[in-house]
Each structure stands twice: as C-alpha cells, then as structure tokens.
C-alpha cells in the first residue's frame, strides 16, 4: 500500500508506552525517521503482532496487491445486494482519494468538490442518453469529460485566487449550492429556451448508457465492481507516485505553511490550480462511472449531504494518508448499511458500547462497577415502575436486542412512550456530556443511569428509525472524532506552528 514515507498502521496512541519525560512522541525536535522506526518496533503487540509487522515490512506494491486480491473475492462471498453496496463503497473511495489531494495534501478547504462530481455525472448522462439524444462512445466521452472537469476546477480556483482561508471554503461551498440550483432549474433559467432541456430539472436524466468499449458492455453488478476495483488500484498507484514526486512534496509544503513555501520559491498559485484541477478531474471521472452505474442522474445525489459524507470518509481515515482515506471510505460506506437491519444494528450498538467502556474505563474495578450498576439499575427501575405505574410498562417486545433475550430487564413502554423516551433522550445526552466533565467515581455514578437511558431509548425508539439513528450516530461520530483524534485513524498528528 502506498504512503511509504509514513507507516500505514500507526497504533492508537493509548497502546503506545508513554515516552520518557512526558514529551509527546511527535513534535518539533524529534527526528521523523527515528520516530517512525520506533513506532514500527513498538507499535504492534498481542497475537496478531507478527502478521501485522510482516505486513508493514512489505513493499507498498505488495501490500496493495494483497488488499486488492482480497477485495477481488468479494463478489463470490456476498449476495448480489452486497455487491451493490461494495460498488457504492468503491465510488466513495475514489471520490475520497480525489478530495484527499485537495484537502489532505494541498490543504485547501474545497467545499465545491461535490459539484465536480455532479458535473462529470451530468456531462456523461447528457452525452450518453436519450436526453439530446446523443450516444457518444465511452472512449470519446471519458477524456473530454475529465478534461472539462479539470478545466472547471481551474476556473473555480482562478476565480477564488484572491480569497484566503475560510473565504475559499465559503466561495466553493456556494459553488456547490449553485450547481444544484442550476441543474434543478435549468430549462427555466433566463437566456435558455424552453426546448433546450439539458438537465431534466428535478426529475434528472434516466436511462444513461452503460460504459462500453468496442462492443463490450459493462452492465452487470460484477462487471461494475471489477471495473471500479481496477480503476481504484490504478488511481492509488498514480496518487502514490504523485505524493512522492516533486509536486506532492511541494503541496505538502504549501499545506504546512504557505508563506514559507513561497519563500522557498515554490510556485504557490500554480500548485493551487493544479491541486484543484486534479481533484476536480478525479471527481468528474468518478461521476461518469456513477452515472453509468446508477443508470441515471438526479439533483439530489449531489447535495451537501453527500459532500459531507465524502469529507467524513477523508477525515475519519486521516487526511493525507492514502490507506487512511481508503479505510475511512470503507467505514463510512459500510456502517449505514449495517444500521439498516435492526438486529445487526443492535449487535453493533451493544458491541460498540462495550468496546467504548472497556477502552475508556481504565481500572477494571470501574468497568465491573459500571456494568453491574447498569444491570442492577435496570431491575430497580423496573421494580419501581411496576409498583408505581404499571400501565407504562405494557409495551410489546421490541425488535431491539436486549429486550429479545433478557426479557423484562429494560422497560418497554406502553402508555406515553413518546414523551417518556423524549425525556430519556435529552437526559441521556445531558448525562453523556456530564461524563466528560466529572472525574473519578462520580463518572461511574453518572455513567450508570446514562447508559440505562441510552439503552431504553434505543430499544423503544431508535431501533425502529434506522435513518434517524444513522444521522444521529454520524453527527456524534464526527464530533467525538474531532475531539479525540482530529488527525483521523491513520493520519499523522501535525504540530501547528503559530
């Protein structure tokens, strides 16, 4: 796997022994090479250590080959529906890699990225469907679309050349918004005649041609999957080489300190243009595949929500690291699918809760106290509720997990369920926030009712509303991630010099 200048699997900071003198392991004054090799030696412990160490010591190309070979077996292991999900993940991975060039390497906050994706998708849909009607051969359409996507990136970048910092983010954000507005209202725009309906308005463009090369049509899930896998591998190799090249190093210099880079005679303006163009070209290219895979394009696919999803993948995995971004795309692409089935989501919920507790509560006595406390608390609440207000406990068993096999432990509310779970929800959030503030055994005291309330809310309400739960968890994940590990899972901590 690429990224030879940085270890692909840096261990989470907790597992590393605290360095001498309490100095942070990374920072100014610590030689980068020493730091990396130390990380490699000390990094892996436990059963899987030898295998992981061997994996780290492989050449990047071999690592990529192993991962790609594993990915190639996916269509044989999962149901057809699973392949569709895998295709979605691969598309997200390609987009995240493209965004990584702009955000992770060049350090430009480009919130217009999703518009380039939409531009590519719409361009392909227009030239390869009954909309015009035109049916360009794929090998003609692709280079043209990629070229124009990149050119659009250069244009946006040129227009925003005078803007620094947040204003760049703002301008590009509005570029995304305007793109969706234009696409949605195209034939009603001024100077556009009623007959010219390029984008199909809110209905989008249905019936887009599949990719085909000289008679070979890529029209099944499996073909799409392997096509995307090959393209992704090529993209990874290209980006890996780009990262190690002069341009890649210049981008990183630019990201760390624009002024210093300029003083080192790095052509800052040209590099910004190049970064935007590269990102835009990758996004536009991915857009053509997206249009072909989904057999249609609709304005709702290119809204801010999807932009945030791509950003989440990049940030979660660690901006700047190719393996990190791939991992982030896998996690962000797959988690929502897991949450779709209530039973699976239940397992995930309780497993996640348990892992979080085990990691966060350090002396084991505290862990035992919390888990025992929650169980006792649950029975106590049930006892009191049955004595005081039996009508409220008569709900039918939920599909949630605990109420399935630990019947009667958690209350399944009947009467006034909505208002009670609403209060429990707010109380659980307040409790969770309070846990981060209080110290010592108070933490245990707050954790016990908080966890109980969380489970109550989960079993009574959330398990039936997967899309809501997804959004809730997604939001919380972003906030927690930023607070705990802002550099992402595999990213490297950067020291901000002010």
């Amino acid at each position, binding site marked *: 796997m690429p990224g030879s200048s940085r270890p692909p699997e840096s261990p989470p900071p907790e597992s590393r022994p605290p360095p001498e003198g309490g100095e942070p392991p990374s920072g100014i004054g610590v030689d980068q090479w020493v730091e990396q090799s130390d990380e490699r030696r000390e990094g892996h412990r436990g059963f899987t250590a030898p295998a992981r160490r061997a994996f780290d010591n492989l050449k990047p190309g071999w690592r990529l080959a192993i991962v790609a070979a594993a990915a190639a077996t996916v269509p044989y292991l999962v149901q057809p529906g699973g392949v569709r999900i895998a295709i979605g993940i691969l598309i997200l991975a390609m987009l995240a890699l493209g965004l990584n060039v702009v955000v992770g390497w060049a350090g430009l906050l480009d919130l217009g990225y999703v518009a380039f994706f939409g531009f590519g998708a719409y361009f392909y849909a227009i030239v390869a469907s009954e909309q015009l009607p035109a049916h360009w051969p794929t090998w003609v359409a692709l280079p043209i679309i990629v070229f124009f996507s990149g050119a659009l990136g250069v244009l946006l970048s040129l227009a925003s050349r005078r803007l620094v910092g*947040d204003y760049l983010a703002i301008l590009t954000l509005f570029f995304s918004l305007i793109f969706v507005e234009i696409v949605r*209202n195209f034939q009603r725009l001024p100077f556009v005649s009623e007959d010219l309906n390029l984008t199909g308005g809110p209905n989008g463009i249905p019936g887009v041609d599949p990719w085909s090369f000289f008679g070979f049509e890529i029209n099944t899930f499996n073909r799409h999957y392997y096509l995307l896998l090959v393209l992704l591998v090529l993209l990874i190799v290209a980006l890996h080489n780009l990262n190690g090249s002069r341009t890649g190093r210049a981008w990183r210099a630019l990201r760390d300190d624009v*002024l210093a880079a300029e003083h080192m005679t790095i052509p800052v303006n040209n590099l910004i243009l190049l970064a935007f163009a590269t990102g835009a070209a990758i996004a536009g290219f991915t857009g053509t595949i997206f249009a072909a895979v989904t057999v249609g394009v609709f304005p709702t696919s290119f809204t801010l929500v999807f932009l945030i999803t791509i950003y989440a993948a990049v940030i979660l995995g660690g901006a700047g690291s190719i393996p990190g971004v791939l991992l982030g795309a896998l996690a962000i692409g797959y988690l929502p699918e897991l949450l779709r089935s209530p039973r699976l989501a239940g397992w995930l919920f309780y497993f996640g809760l348990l892992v979080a507790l085990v990691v966060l509560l350090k002396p084991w006595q505290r862990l035992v106290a919390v888990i025992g406390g929650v169980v006792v608390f649950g029975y106590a609440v049930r006892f009191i509720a049955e004595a005081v207000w039996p009508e409220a406990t008569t709900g039918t068993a939920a599909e949630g997990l605990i109420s399935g096999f630990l019947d009667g432990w958690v209350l399944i509310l009947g009467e006034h369920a909505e208002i009670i779970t609403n209060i429990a*929800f707010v109380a659980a959030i307040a409790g969770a926030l309070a846990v*981060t503030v209080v110290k010592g055994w108070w933490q245990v005291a707050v954790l016990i009712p908080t966890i109980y309330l969380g489970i109550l809310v989960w079993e009574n309400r959330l398990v039936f509303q997967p899309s809501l739960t997804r*959004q*809730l968890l997604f939001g919380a994940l*972003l906030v927690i991630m*930023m607070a705990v590990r802002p550099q992402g899972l595999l990213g490297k901590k950067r020291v901000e010099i002010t």
Partner: protein
Amino acid sequence: MEFFLQQTLNGLTLGSVYALLAIGYSMVYGILKLLNFAHGEVYMFGAFAGYGVLTLLGGPASPVVPVWLLLILMFLGAVVVSSAIGVGMERFAYRPLRKSSRIAPLISAIGVSFFLQASALYLFTAGFRTYDTPKLIDISTGIPVGPIRVWLVRVLVIVGTAVLMVVLTLWVNRSRTGKAVRAVSFDREAAEMMGVNVNHVIVVTFLIGSALAGIAGVMTALVFGRIFHFMGFIAGLKAFTAAVVGGIGSIPGAMLGGLLIGMAEAYTTGYISSTFQNLIVFGLLIVVLLIKPTGLLGKPQLVKV
C-alpha cells in the same frame, strides 16, 4: 406601487430574521474564526421552544394568559432553550478544539448540526407544525402604510429587530464586556495577556448569538407559520450568506447583509420567480466576494509572520 410596498415589507421582515441570525454567525466567527454551521439548528430549536410554550399555555385559539404575556413567554422560552444549546455546543464540541487545526472545528460544527437535526426529528417527529398566529393576533390589526396595512406581527418583528440591534450595538460599543468582546475578536492572545477572561467572552458570545437565533426562530414562526425539523438548514444558509456578504466578523455588516439578502429574496420572488430566489441570493454572494473578497464591511485580514 402597492405590490412594490408589499414586497419591500416582505423583504424587511425576512431581512430582519436573517440579520438576527447572521449576527450569531458573525460574532462567533469574529471571536473564534469558526464557521458555526450548527447555528441554523439553534434557530430551529428556538422556534420549537416557542411552539412548546404556546401549546403548554393553551394553544393559539384559547390561550390561558393574555396575548402579550404569552408572546413574552414564548420569546423567553426560545431564548432559554437556544442559549442552553449554544453554550453547551461551545463547551462540549468547540472548546476541546481551540488549539487544533482550522478544519477540525468546522467538521465538528457539521457533526453538531447533523446531531441536532436528527435530535429534532426524534423529539418532534417529521411533519409541519404551525403557530396559527392569525388566531392569536387578528390579521386585520395593524398599521396602515400608504395603500397597504402592515399586520401587527410584522410590525413586532421589524421593530423588535431594530430595537435589538440598537441595544446590541450599544452593548458592544459601550459596556465593559462588549469592549472585551471587541478586544478578543481583534487579537485573542493580546487580549488574554491584558487580563481579559477569554473563556468568559466566548461563552457570552455564544449566549448572545444563540439567544438572537432563538428570537429569530419564534419571529419566523409567528410570521410565516410553519416549523419543521429541517427549517434551520436553509435559513442558516441564507443567514450565513448574509453574514459573508456583509463581511463576516463585522456586526453592522451582518445587519446590512441580512437586510440586503432579505430584500433580494423578496424582490426576486415578487418580480421574477421563486425558482430563482436561491440562485440570486447565492449568486449575489459570489459576485460580492469576487469584487470585495472580505465582504461589504469586512476588514482585510492581515497576515503576520
């Protein structure tokens, strides 16, 4: 003429609400250099808090207290809920990130926004609710202005906003805390060295911004009626546009920007078509930014080495 007046009135009402919201964006940006994308959600919760008070006190058809008291209580409820959310957001989502890179708080703000929106969907469920203000305050009451009659609620919104802005301007320019706010937004480190309690200033900023957002939420709901869990997104976006057009970080700029965006939206809807309302507003922002990169009243950022 009548139509023009009507649209101007619409623009003023909309602009007032946007201006109140934009102040929150602008103040927070001025102090923390943070684009608080969750601000629209604070506004949405304010509108729902007002609705909660209204429902608790008997609903619009048969309120148990006099109407003026009911309105005050609704605004008060919105202010309390919104400020609590705003201050909590600062304490738990943004404060841990003070020293991290610029992108981290931005992502965190997006996360908070998602979380609050989903929470609202959970608490209030999907679907529209309405304040049903005409039952509360008769639609025929109002002040005649030329050929049209301005509904009392609109008068309340416009005059209320004007009063709030005057008070805020006086507070920022005259009071001790206001001075501290200006000092921190000018140079946080220097202010800290001069003995300004920066944490306190930041909390006060979030408090004021969120309270104004809550008030704006109730005002919108009073005039335009419908509230729903997604209302914060588009209003937040418009107000954000207003803040940027006016020059983000500048309070008078936010007021000006709010009115400008409100007017632009009203005239577009009235004279062209409501389809272009967003396009015109967003286009206006891009044009302003391209001509004057720091907004109308914004000061250019100096880069110090």
